[in-house]
């Protein structure tokens, strides 16, 4: 450091430049400023006073590709204007390096893609719309393919991948039990507390039990479980399938004559269809249990009264409504997760985007489905 990288001297109509110091990557920033100053200066490449330039590289201690390129850029300023640039004093290996750099950057760089703000906004809207339509399309396609694969498996049950199913069931259902039980327990407790607190004003605390019972069995149990499973297992399905797609594992399966939907998607979806009712049942029980505990400790309702009131308030219908919905929600979550997983492109970023989409879309679909079921059950009087 401290040494001048480039000094200039005018000898007649000849510009003499003397280089020194280290022409290497760490000094490239400074060096570039120097070079632009000299070349664009009063006696630089554009001036009419000087005819040619000589650059003495003898004092340069180190030279790397950064320095060599900048030297090349410097000489091109003059040669480009049809004048002479002479480089002297380069050591042998430096000369080789400059020779290497001589050929590069001859073509103009490819134009950076232009962005018209209005066009890009319109393009983004268009992409969003077709993306939305595309999501539905892939969802429908996945539904069809899974249905086909399921039909094939029904014809030849021996081809079904049982090991994979058992493994997935362990991950999706059994390992989810503690967290699902805990969360639904807390939700049940909160519902009971809120019910008792507000109904107490009318002296109708007992109805809090109706509230907890009906709400949990019909709606909250299955919804909370579905949302948990979408976040927990749906996202992992998408990430798994997506990274398999990225590493060409899916293509490999296909070339070996396997149908990826049959091998990877079908077992996962079947597992979800089985796991959701099981987890919903468990979650509903945990929520009722949580409600009972709060009713007892906070509402002063003995367990006997709670249970008696509960049996009065709820019927098998409420329970059935919740349980009927569960497998469909499992199906939707599985389809969305797998479809989004298979849409992953080459980059890590796209894996992230698709995983986010998978969770958001499946939760959205679960809630829409729940609404449709509500209309359906209302019209058949359940």
């Amino acid at each position, binding site marked *: 450091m401290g040494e001048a990288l480039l000094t200039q001297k005018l000898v007649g109509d000849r510009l003499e430049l003397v280089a020194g110091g280290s022409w290497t990557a760490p000094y490239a*920033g400074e060096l*570039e400023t120097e070079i632009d100053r000299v070349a664009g200066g009063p006696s630089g490449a554009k001036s009419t006073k000087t005819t040619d330039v000589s650059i003495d590289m003898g004092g340069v201690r180190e030279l*790397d590709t950064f320095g060599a390129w900048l030297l090349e*850029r410097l000489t091109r300023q003059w040669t480009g204007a049809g004048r002479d640039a002479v480089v002297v004093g380069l050591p042998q290996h430096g000369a080789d390096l400059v020779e*290497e750099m001589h050929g*590069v*950057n001859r073509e103009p760089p490819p134009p950076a893609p232009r962005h018209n703000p209005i066009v890009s906004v319109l393009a983004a809207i268009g992409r969003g719309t077709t993306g939305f339509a595309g999501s539905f399309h892939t969802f429908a396609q996945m539904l069809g393919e899974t249905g086909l694969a399921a039909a094939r498996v029904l014809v030849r049950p021996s081809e079904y991948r049982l090991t994979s199913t058992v493994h997935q069931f362990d991950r999706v259902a059994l390992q989810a039990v503690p967290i699902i039980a805990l969360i639904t327990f807390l939700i049940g407790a909160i519902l009971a507390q809120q019910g008792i607190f507000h109904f107490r004003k009318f002296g109708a605390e007992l109805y809090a039990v109706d509230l907890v019972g009906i709400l949990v069995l019909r709606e909250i149990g299955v919804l909370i479980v579905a949302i948990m499973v979408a976040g927990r297992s749906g996202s992992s399905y998408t990430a798994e399938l997506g990274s398999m797609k990225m590493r060409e594992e899916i293509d490999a399966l296909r070339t070996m004559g396997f149908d990826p939907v049959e091998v990877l998607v079908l077992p996962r979806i079947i597992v979800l269809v089985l796991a959701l009712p099981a987890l919903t049942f468990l979650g509903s029980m945990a929520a009722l249990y949580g409600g009972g505990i709060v009713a007892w400790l906070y509402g002063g309702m003995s367990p006997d009264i709670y249970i008696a009131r509960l049996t009065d308030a709820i019927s098998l219908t409420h329970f059935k409504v919740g349980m009927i919905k569960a497998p469909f929600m499992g199906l939707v979550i599985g389809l969305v997760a797998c479809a989004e997983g298979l849409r992953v492109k*080459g980059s890590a970023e796209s894996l992230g985007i698709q995983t986010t989409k998978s969770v958001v879309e499946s939760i959205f679909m679960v809630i829409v489905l729940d609404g449709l079921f509500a209309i359906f059950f209302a019209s058949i009087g359940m």
Partner: protein
Amino acid sequence: MSETPPVIKVRDLVVGFGTQTVLDHLDMDVRPSEILGVVGASGAGKSVLLRTIIGLIPRREGSIEVLGKDLDRVDENERRALERRWGVLFQQGALFSSLTVKQNVQFPMRENLDISQRLMDEMAYAKLELVGLSPRDGEKFPSELSGGMTKRVALARALALDPEIVFLDEPTSGLDPISAGDFDELIRTLQQTLEITVFMVTHDLESLYNACDRIAVLADGKVAAEGTISVMLESQHPWVKMYFQGKRGSSLADRELTQ
């Protein structure tokens, strides 16, 4: 040459995974400005050795000195400074999938140098041209590249900061013979012009003949033989014999001799 201290000095290195010992009391020197070819059977531990030297795999015993610094005794800052002085080409390329080719090459520059965007662009295109790619490939994403292009971009990225040492893990595998030959020549040119030291893992006999100054053979967790190609041809070690004097090896050796 042997008086100058080695650029990489590995002593008594033991590396293993679980119950498996991959490298077993291995010693190795890499001399300044040489191209060292590391060969060995698949699974012999070449990649593991490379990854251990650059500090990605923990070692059980032994010491590693790179550019005169003991890797156990450097602090965080020294280590980062050291990492800036080497470039690595991983066996699988390891390009950043969400950046374009140009951005991949510029990534180390952007992080470590204070230079203008214009110079960064020019340098990125220059490096791409050096490794035989055209500037038009700069806007592509890694998933849109062929296998050989991936290797080239990875090399360009490894060379982005003009490192003093480059570690190459099978740079020519997956390239057609002509490109592989160009690659060898390129590495030779770079080594001569930039005076870099090259640590190259390879299976490519052509590369060993054309590019490497010295060869180290890895077998049974140790360096079983090291030296120039003629030393290898005379070695009595069974694996080395098979490798260099087998069908493919000897035809190359004959050709080399007749030239």
